[in-house]
């Protein structure tokens, strides 16, 4: 049901964006995917932080599963953020990538997710140890994240922080896009957590 509403919202957002709220030149319309992607990538990291702290406080495996799921989902959105950003940058400034603070920190966000996932898959040993190590990395890695936000607002950069959306329809399209992507992120995290829970259950009670 939630998935359906997310898709409806996404379609609505795209339709409004392209039919009434089009930004000129056309290439700039990728912002309707770029901004929601960036918000979700950051939100997933906050979920990861909360789940990591939750795990270290309570040692319940459910928290660890939420952390694992949010890292995977966050990785997807960070990829969306960076890819759409690169396409936008190519269309706007003629380069795929340039070492400006904003672009460096978005790249860093992606790398943090990748390293988290590598860490998760490469630690052998008991499950609680793996979960604890990942939780500690999640917390330390989150300390790098505020810099992503600060660099977006306060550092002089080619990247414009507050792109002005002039008309109401443009703003409507943007907010629908943000809403849709947030629901999508939540559904993905929920689904992945469920899969991990079932996996855990299967490992506990092997079928005869």
């Amino acid at each position, binding site marked *: 049901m939630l998935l359906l509403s997310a898709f409806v919202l996404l379609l609505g957002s795209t339709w409004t964006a392209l039919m009434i709220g089009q930004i000129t030149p056309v290439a700039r319309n990728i912002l309707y995917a770029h901004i929601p992607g960036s918000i979700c990538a950051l939100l997933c990291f906050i979920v990861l932080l909360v789940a990591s702290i939750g795990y270290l406080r309570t040692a319940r495996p459910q928290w660890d599963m939420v952390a694992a799921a949010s890292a995977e989902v966050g990785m997807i959105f960070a990829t969306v953020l960076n890819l759409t950003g690169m396409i936008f940058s190519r269309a706007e400034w003629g380069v795929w990538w340039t070492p400006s603070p904003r672009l*460096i920190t978005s790249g860093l966000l992606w*790398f*943090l997710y990748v390293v988290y996932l590598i860490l998760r898959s490469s630690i052998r040993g008991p499950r609680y140890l*793996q979960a604890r190590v990942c939780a*500690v990395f999640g917390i*330390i890695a989150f*300390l790098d994240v505020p*810099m992503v936000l600060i660099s977006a607002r306060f*550092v*002089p950069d080619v990247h414009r922080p507050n792109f002005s959306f002039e008309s109401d329809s443009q703003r409507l399209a943007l907010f629908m896009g943000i809403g849709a992507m947030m629901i999508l992120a939540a559904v993905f995290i929920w689904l992945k957590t469920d899969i991990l829970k079932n996996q855990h259950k299967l490992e506990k009670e092997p079928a005869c």
Partner: protein
Amino acid sequence: MRYFWLSIKAVFVKDIVVELRARQVIPTMVVLGMLIVWILRTASEAASISAIVIGPAALWIAFLFSGLLAQERAFAVEQQNDCIYGLLLAPVDVGTIFLAKLLVNVVMLCIFEIIIVPVVMISFGLDIHGRWAGLAGVLLLGNLGICGVGTLFSAMVQLARSFGSLLSIIVLVILMPMMIPATLAMLMLFGAIPDELSGVGGLMFAGNFKSAIGYMIAFDAVFVTACWLLFGLVVKE
């Protein structure tokens, strides 16, 4: 408080004595560092890139990789005969063990820096223009950041019996925000770029030398404290 200093001293002296007798870590660090410097010097000559730009960057590359080498040893040495459990069973706060290990790593890296900085300055023909205090400050701050993050994660990687190369990617990705102002500060010290940068050049809060230093102090304070607090959770069995 006296007990705190005594326990730090005990672990510190133990590790330094081990190093003095085995002479394992520092020679390896120095050789690795010199190889890195030598390769970069050759490359900069071949590509005719100005040595004054590559030199300060070469310093950080050498510190990072040699530092990782030392940090990996810091807890690997405790794995033999399961010494780590003896250390953890000692009636001291685990945070103290972290601080002692951090101190050992910082001292090792300092010794390495004292050797490698003249090597870099001679081979790249760099001139510090009398700003030795600035150089010492930047080196010490960078040192503390590298060692703080490295010490925590080397304990983690060792306890999880994971492979060592994992440590390098973990530490490098966490340190990245500090390495940019650190490199810029170093470039400013050697006169490769002006002390005041403008526009997009003011990369990552390092618009001028002072803000780069301030940013490094903030990074060190946040990360060393966080690592110190989380260390207890990592080694808890």
